């Protein structure tokens, strides 16, 4: 598993080549998505125009983009932590769901002022996400169950748990308050205005609080992994568990901590979704943000700063997608583009490794 995860990174210098390859394959992915649009009779120029207009066209659309990017970045940052520690937790989608549930319990059942509710809701969300991820770690280190499998299975359990809680007699169900036809759908009440996440006005843009938190988290995690002693131990565990064992790093302890931390970030993302985007719990509240965030971290080769960039690109797609419908273009093209980006971004290391081999062969032969 260590070799497998190391293959995700691959430190191929020089850096310019890496950046160029990254940008080239990023554009390739976008190009493939546009190609599909073109093949089905939609002008790629219009699609691109809408995506730009809807994401960075005005200060309002920048706000939309940042709102969409925030939970993605939170999930990705968490995924970076556990991947670096060699723990292949892929259950972020479920951990996001649990986070939304945790935040929901605070919002709908705790009577407190706005700011207090928000802080408590974030805490509950992180705790719930961490607990769900910890289950997978417990199965791995306690019973030897592959964490890929256990974290994946927990995603589907989380989905059913959420549906059970918001339907029928569930504690988060919206009973409709006597509104005609209310109370039948599986959904929670709406988040009261006082618990909606505020925005911070910066340079004419209303920056959502969730994005600020996510950005701070990304910076802290990048610093932690590169410079902190504990982060160093985490990386050793990920790169070489045997060495980690001999220098006294306890894989079960540090590994579960890393998995729980990744779950906490995913959970916080769930809270951010509930309080900043959906404002209501419904069966699809996580809307694949857990999967996307995980893929961002993987496509960014578990690098926190590249994750920020990719989260912004994905956020731009989500925000820009809103305009596509107006031009008669199905919004789903956005998901094609983001998925094509992820697949394309898997390729640069292979290319760079081949280039490096060739360079070495040349220098040996010369």
């Amino acid at each position: 598993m260590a070799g497998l995860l190391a293959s995700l990174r691959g430190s191929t210098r020089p850096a310019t080549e890496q950046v160029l390859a990254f940008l080239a394959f990023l554009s390739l992915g976008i190009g493939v998505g546009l190609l599909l649009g073109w093949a089905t009779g939609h002008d790629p120029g219009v699609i691109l125009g809408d995506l730009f207009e809807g994401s960075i066209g005005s200060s309002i659309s920048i706000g939309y983009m940042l709102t969409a990017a925030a939970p993605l970045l939170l999930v990705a940052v968490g995924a970076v932590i556990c991947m670096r520690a060699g723990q292949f937790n892929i259950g972020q989608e479920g951990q996001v769901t649990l986070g939304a549930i945790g935040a929901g319990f605070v919002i709908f059942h705790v009577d407190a002022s706005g700011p207090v509710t928000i802080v408590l809701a974030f805490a509950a969300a992180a705790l719930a996400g961490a607990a769900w991820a910890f289950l997978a770690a417990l199965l791995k280190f306690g019973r030897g169950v592959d964490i890929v499998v256990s974290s994946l299975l927990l995603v589907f359990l989380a989905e059913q748990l959420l549906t059970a809680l918001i339907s029928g007699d569930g504690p988060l169900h919206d009973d409709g308050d006597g509104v005609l036809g209310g109370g039948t759908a599986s959904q929670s009440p709406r988040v009261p205005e006082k618990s909606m996440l505020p925005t911070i006005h910066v340079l004419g843009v209303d920056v959502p609080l969730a994005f600020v938190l996510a950005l701070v988290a990304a910076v802290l995690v990048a610093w932690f992994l590169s410079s902190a002693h504990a982060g160093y131990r985490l990386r050793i565990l990920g790169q070489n568990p045997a060495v980690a064992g001999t220098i006294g790093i306890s894989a079960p302890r540090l590994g579960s901590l890393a998995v729980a931390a990744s779950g906490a970030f995913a959970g916080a993302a769930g809270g951010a979704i509930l309080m900043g985007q959906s404002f209501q719990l419904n069966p699809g509240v996580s809307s694949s943000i857990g999967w996307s965030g995980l893929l961002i971290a993987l496509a960014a080769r578990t690098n926190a700063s590249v994750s920020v960039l990719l989260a912004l690109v994905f956020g731009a797609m989500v925000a820009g997608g809103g305009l596509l419908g107006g031009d008669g273009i199905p919004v789903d093209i956005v998901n094609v583009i983001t998925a094509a980006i992820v697949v394309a971004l898997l390729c640069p290391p292979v290319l760079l490794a081949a280039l490096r081999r060739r360079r070495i062969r040349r220098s040996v032969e010369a």
Partner: protein
Amino acid sequence: MNLTTDLQTILTASVPLMVPLLFAGLGEYVAQRAGTFNLSVEGMMLGSAFAAAYGASASGSPIVGLLCGMLAGLAVAFVHGNLSHRLQLNTYVVGLSLNVLVLGVTNYLLSTTVLDIPGGSAWRIPLLSELPIIGKAFFVQPWVVYLLLPLLFVIWWVRRRRIGLELRAAGDDPVAGDLTGIDVNARRRQALLFCGLCSGIGGAYLSVFQSGSFTSGMTAGRGYIVIAAVIFGGWMLRGVIGACAVFGIAQGLQLALPAIGYSVSPQLLAATPYLLALVSLALLGARSRRPLALGQPFAPAR
């Protein structure tokens, strides 16, 4: 209410739900034995369900639909195989990204096409379909279902040939396999293609033969249930078949129990396959016959 009719209701509801799991499960079993932890089985099923629906709708023939479905499954398998067993990319990452890609592409194409899928009729096997309890459930089904038998035969036959041994070697000890002259990565790609073919039939069954329609994300995690079934079945053929049957029944109960007059939380029933898999994994721990090199990339020395 008597037991016979209750059992018949449950079985009749469950068998159609078992079928796609069985098709994809057989494929995933082969892929995993050859060492690929194939997460893209979900994408294979979804892509082929759409391709089959599209093919059947465009041509008016379910057979063309089935062929399109198999092709789509093969296409996903081809991409996965080349990315992870030629370029040595992380198979989990490739699988997850392909699933998202297929979901996006099918959703997009669905919104640009109108589907009109021709209905197929069920085969009523003489005599056997008259049997009590199991007759209606097992022997009055669309013809595609009976493709399971030749498929099973192929797997059973392959297992006792050299190729079967080579496939297992690719999954258990690729280094030793490589030393004895087996092209490990080629075997893994072939196993994946077989998985694509099987999942293709499963996907086609889902859209064309079972429901007669294609809806967004219609596989709804069936691919992941299949993966759970292979693990729950302990990577053994009869275990995998049994697990698919159990998971199919768990899904069927969701439909059958209200009809019989029991009320159980639908969410609990929907969660049953996953719970079963998790609990059995936790109890079995490392005692199963997990292929030793499952999920590990193999780069032959040059």
